[in-house]
């Protein structure tokens, strides 16, 4: 007890001395560091080395004193960890305890997917990471923690996944009310989700557990097991250590694991539109829409022009395209925790999605953020609420021009279910307004990109998430020519061979 109070006092003195220093205007990089070494208890050599690495590479986010308030902090969601409070998310220790050294080591080594916390494997040696761990531990305010070694969770034998295990897991997911936060199908859209706050009072979203590649603690079955066994300290994600037994935990882990693909889907540069016969179905569950490949495109916040969006809500979309002799259509699917479809006159921002094309195909492409003065874009924009589909043109942020009513030719429909929008949008392959509309010719490579807005995250106008340009190509129909020219080419090759042989033989004979 005494030791702790002493420790607290020293920290206090240190903090006061720092504020005094600030007041005297001495806050220049070097002198702050010097002052700390003078007043603070001497750091071990290892921690000392860690501190210098920390100041160079971590302070930008975690702050010079480890308070999670570096210059970048206000631009990040989740915010960088405040080490002083000692609430670590990923631990092999029980709720409320500090993590083990290995836990901290692993977080620095591999990073926290789905956040801005990178893995530092490439940058640092193991020794350096140990030094960082040693230093981070000196930042923690030990007032809140006892001196005993943190209690670790015990982990039983893993149970392999099976249909039976998944069924049990699903039942546990329901019974333990995981869905209240994570949603019925796991997209983070549960009824309690909108009200959640972290321990510092910041709103926090419940994880979308259909995107395992964004799990802070990793997406192996064991990682998931550990997550709900220990809980994520500092967040509303509770610890279930006393609620269920070891076997059930494995069933639940297997089930949660099964909700995501094994890895993040690959990103391809060319989106191929499949040619179909007959009508394009308007129902996303139609067998035609089930066939063919789903293309995955990551999105990022728009931070090129003001107003910028640093903490976007929609991080990726899935898209599929088909076309027939008359029309081309897209099925766009994306996860959004809240449905914002305001009625007319309501002061709420709608969820929206847009597909972007250049108006004209030439060497120079329009700027990927809504085009530029010399190169306009053609937008197909959908807004929730009244399900408005709108053809528009833009020449940069703030220069968005909807086309007149006579030029509107988009058809489609959107539906929201369990934290996910599904939008179908289609248009005729060609239009009469070549000066404003993209025209589709099979086999041509057409730049395409995507813009998304989540109303509940205050996204509108330039505040959006978006992708850079990719290509769309309408699959060229196989022509009869291929089947005529291929045999001809083979015949030609055979003919050539015999010709060559005859000449060679003659040459050889005449030489003999």
């Amino acid at each position: 007890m005494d030791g702790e109070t002493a420790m607290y006092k020293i920290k206090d003195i240190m903090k006061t001395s720092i504020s005094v220093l600030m007041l005297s205007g001495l806050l220049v990089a070097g002198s702050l560091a010097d002052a700390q070494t003078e007043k603070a208890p001497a750091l071990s050599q290892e921690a000392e080395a860690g501190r210098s690495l920390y100041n160079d590479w971590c302070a930008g986010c975690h702050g010079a004193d480890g308070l999670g308030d570096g210059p970048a902090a206000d631009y990040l969601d989740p915010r960088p960890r405040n080490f002083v409070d000692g609430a670590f998310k990923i631990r092999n220790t029980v709720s409320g305890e500090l993590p083990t050294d290995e836990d901290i080591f692993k977080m620095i080594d591999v990073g926290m997917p789905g956040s801005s916390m990178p893995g530092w494997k490439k940058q640092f040696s193991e020794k350096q990471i140990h030094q960082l761990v040693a230093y981070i531990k000196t930042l923690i305010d030990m007032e809140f923690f006892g001196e005993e070694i943190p209690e670790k969770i015990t982990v039983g034998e893993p149970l392999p996944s099976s249909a039976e295990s998944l069924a049990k897991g699903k039942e546990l997911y329901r019974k333990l009310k995981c869905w209240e936060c994570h949603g019925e199908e796991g997209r983070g859209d549960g009824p309690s989700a909108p009200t959640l706050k972290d321990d510092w009072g910041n709103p926090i979203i419940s994880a979308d557990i259909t995107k395992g590649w964004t799990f802070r603690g990793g997406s192996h079955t064991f990682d998931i097991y550990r997550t709900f066994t220990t809980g994520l300290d500092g967040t509303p994600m509770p610890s279930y250590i006393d609620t269920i037994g070891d076997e059930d935990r494995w069933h639940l882990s297997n089930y949660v694991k099964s909700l995501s693909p094994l890895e993040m889907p690959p990103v391809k540069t060319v989106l191929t539109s499949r040619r179909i016969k007959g009508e394009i179905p308007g129902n996303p569950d139609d067998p035609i829409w089930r066939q063919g490949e789903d293309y995955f495109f990551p999105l990022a916040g728009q931070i090129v022009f003001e107003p910028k969006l640093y903490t976007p809500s929609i991080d990726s979309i899935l898209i599929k395209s088909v076309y027939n002799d008359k029309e081309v259509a897209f099925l766009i699917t994306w996860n959004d925790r809240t449905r914002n479809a305001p009625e007319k006159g309501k002061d709420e921002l709608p969820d929206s999605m847009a597909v972007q094309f250049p108006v004209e195909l030439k060497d120079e492409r329009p700027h990927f953020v809504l085009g530029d003065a010399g190169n306009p874009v053609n937008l197909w924009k959908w807004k929730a609420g009244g399900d408005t589909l709108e053809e528009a043109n833009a020449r940069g942020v703030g220069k968005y021009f909807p086309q007149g009513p006579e030029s509107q030719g988009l058809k489609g429909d959107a539906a929201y279910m369990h934290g996910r929008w599904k939008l179908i949008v289609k248009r005729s392959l060609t239009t009469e307004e070549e000066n404003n509309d993209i025209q589709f010719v099979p086999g041509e490579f057409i730049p395409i990109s995507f813009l998304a807005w989540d109303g509940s995250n205050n996204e509108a106008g330039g505040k959006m998430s978006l992708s850079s340009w990719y290509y769309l190509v309408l699959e060229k129909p196989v022509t009869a020519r291929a089947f005529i020219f291929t045999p001809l080419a083979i015949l030609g090759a055979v003919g050539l061979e015999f010709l060559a042989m005859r000449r060679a033989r003659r040459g050889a004979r005449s030489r003999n």
Partner: protein
Amino acid sequence: MRSKFVQVVLIAVVIFLFLKLGIRPPIPGSLITLFMAITALTLFIYVSSDEESWQDFIRPILATLVEEKRARLRLIVFIVFPLLVGWGTLKVMMPGVDPPAELRVIHPAPPSNIQFRGKNIKIEGLVNPLRENGEEASGYIKEGMEIYFKNCFFCHGDALDGNGHFTLALNPPPADFTDTGTIAQLQESYLFWRIAKGGIGLPRQSKPWNSAMPAWEENLTEDAIWKTIMYLYHAAGVSPRTWE
């Protein structure tokens, strides 16, 4: 092994494998075809440069066409060659999904002058003016770091490796400052120009341009840009190229 024919085939195969597998990110098929055509032409000029080398080259081909003891090989070649031609034709005729080649000059020559917020700045011969105040450099680096962590790391990454948390959505990807091919071989004045004018300010030869790089002229002052540049070189542990 000594035969010209084997040499030529080996060279062609090595070049093809290099183009196909040795270059990351992969280059489009149409470019590979172009480079292979150039290779074939060069090799042809090489073997036909004098009569002796030409004879050396075609000897194994003639032998395969004529000699009795090579009858089996001849049969194989006579079957495989037309099949390859047929396969190639079918591939060309079938709808392809190779995107158009995007050849761009990544580091185009900078202009000699730029207008920065209405002020004329001569880029040619320009050095970082803050470096004169040697003493205060460490303060500048710290300020540069703050600017970097409020504006740049989203894309260029906090480890300066071009791997920020927004990078995945960007194509082409943001510059990796730890790569020896970027800031280490550029002058500070070049960086100043690129930072001030962004992707939009690139000259024509760099089109089709897709760069997400914003033009920082609007948000950062001249001094702020120079400080950020100092931080970049300091943190990446390299020095700028100098004006000789």
